């Protein structure tokens, strides 16, 4: 299995380059907020060389939708991105993927969206349209994820461990709230707690908006997923030492729910067991 690992800082990068990770996931400034470590286009070119020199591949991650005006302003840069010596480009915006394909991107294109591909029929349609890999929706049940693993083990990129995004808003919701309660110095990373229950979530605000992440680590340790060609580790809100441990466990075949739980300061879960109430809810 080739392992994608998100890089969150320059310090993390140094440690991950020394690890057994196969692919470093980084971002381009102005396109990924604070979701992962980001660099300018000028910094990107030498960074790719450094990562390659360590025997690892590079994935440039664009997690969010791109508005027309933002896209147009940066179109020349994005054309140049297509011709860089990148190994993978992960797109949360289908238009960006299509654009890169039209400009003969050398990198393999990943359609990386948390919700849109919840069945293999859609997955095949995206692959036929030019994408090379895809991420199955995160919030489908384990049984439904296994369908992807069985049918498309070479194209499905599963998040095996880490926190995960559960909503993203283009609005600066934290800053707006701070304005209303006259709190000028509020932090851009918070914990949200539902008042009606004790459930908690991470909140992050950056130049791309306000994003909510689950505060539990999603762990897929089932052999079905570990037998796929690709795996992904997200590391936002996680101590890099934990991330390094996951890499080691995955490469040494000792990765499991229990071992992750044992070493983590965060709660751990297998993902939602049931999200099937949608079609029946309230009818």
């Amino acid at each position, binding site marked *: 299995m080739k392992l994608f690992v998100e890089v969150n800082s320059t310090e993390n990068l140094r440690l991950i380059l020394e690890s057994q990770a196969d692919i470093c996931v980084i971002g381009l400034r102005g396109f990924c907020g604070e979701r992962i470590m980001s660099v300018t286009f000028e910094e990107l070119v030498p960074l790719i060389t450094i990562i390659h020199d360590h025997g690892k591949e590079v994935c440039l991650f664009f997690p969010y939708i791109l*508005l027309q005006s933002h896209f147009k302003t940066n179109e020349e840069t994005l054309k140049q991105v297509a011709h860089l010596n990148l190994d993978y480009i992960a797109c949360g915006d289908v238009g960006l993927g299509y654009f890169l394909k039209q400009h003969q991107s050398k990198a393999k294109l990943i359609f990386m969206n948390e919700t849109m591909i919840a*069945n293999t*029929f859609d997955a095949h349609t995206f692959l036929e349209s030019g994408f090379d890999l895809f991420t199955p929706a995160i919030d489908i049940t384990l049984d439904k994820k296994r369908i992807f693993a069985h049918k498309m083990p070479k194209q499905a990129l599963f998040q095996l461990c880490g926190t995960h995004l559960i909503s993203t808003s283009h609005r600066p919701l934290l800053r707006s709230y701070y304005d209303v309660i006259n*709190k000028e110095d509020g932090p851009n990373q918070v914990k949200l707690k539902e008042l*009606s229950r004790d459930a908690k979530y991470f909140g992050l605000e950056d130049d791309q908006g306000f994003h909510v992440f689950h505060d539990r680590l999603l762990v897929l340790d089932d052999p079905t997923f570990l037998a796929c060609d690709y795996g992904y580790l997200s590391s936002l809100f996680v101590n890099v030492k934990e991330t390094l441990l996951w890499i080691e466990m995955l490469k040494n075949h000792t990765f499991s729910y229990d071992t992750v739980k044992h070493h983590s300061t965060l709660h751990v879960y297998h993902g939602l067991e049931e999200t099937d109430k949608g079609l029946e809810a309230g009818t």
Partner: protein
Amino acid sequence: MSVELLAPAGDLLRLKVAFDFGADAVFIGGKAFSLRARASNFTMDDIQQGVKIAHDRGKKLFVTVNIVPHEDNFEGIEQYLTQLNAMGVDAIIVASIAMGKISKRVAPNMEVHISTQVSAANEHALRFYKSLGFDRVVLARECSLEDVRAMVNLNILPIEVFIHGGMCVNVSGRCTLSNHMSLRDANRGGCAQSCRWRYELTSLDEQTMISDPNLTFTMSSKDLNATPHLKELLEMNVASLKIEGRMKSEYYVATIVNAYRHFIDHVDELDEDNHVASTLVELSKAASRATFDGFYKTLPHSSSILYGVNGGGINQDFVGVVRKIEGDRMWVEVRNVFNENDVLEVFGPNHENRQWIVSNMRNEDEESITRAYQPMSWVSMPCIHPIEIDEFIRKVTP
């Protein structure tokens, strides 16, 4: 190219009302494959009737097939789409490109419109969907007027934009708050609107309270009302202006559609500022949450969020529908209480609003009454002029 005014309908009654009050097309949900599971939604027989009502008036009917389907949700889809095609449905609205492609294969007469659930926000997304053979894109609600204009001018695909109704605070289709907080799948019709709940904020280590206990954090968005930018949208030749709200009442549909129809039809005749102001007044007569103008001009800030407010928007101003005219009296089907001497206003698609003071009411037994209170009962009163059957009556709040 004349713009299409596209309205929602949760059942046949609201579909007919939407057309009566000026919609060019109506979108509905079937019993299967559609979001808004809590809307009453249409049986196949209802859809057939809806197509007939639409086509008899030279108008169009669209059906939402806009769930993000799981593996087992494809069962029966080909048969369903084939049936919709045979009925003459003009278009389906999809969030799944696989379902869109299936429709193109088995239901070639129906257009495929890409839902806002896929959050298409740039010209390259439009090119992608065009490459798949689809016919229209409903843009992400995060697009500004300039974004919309730029994409319309490229003439890649017809573009539909929202002008009124509920707003997801998050990027549509990319939110699973409901899935996690209530195990109800937001992208398959079960959204519990968890964004509207109240949350406490702390530091990451939970040691420091950040939120104000007297005004807790929420992500509860105000509704969209694009009236201030409607003239610009009309001038840039978008294909369709969409009103959200398949779960809204017949009165809401009538009021909102009527106001926008009036704006569109008279856009060149009236002073813009006054036209906007009078339209805003008309729209405010429908039950609604507080509104804002979306992302069209600026990035929404605190004024787009409902802090410390629970929903709201129910009013009882809608008091009846004109059902019959007999000589110099009209029969009104009662919806909410009204009394003798109340000031009422009748509105409909063919006339300016008319007001009068209620007097000389009689019930179905021809007895004189001073109060109409029984929902769905009929009361008669002297006609005002002009008057038409199926016009709506509301109470004028002093």
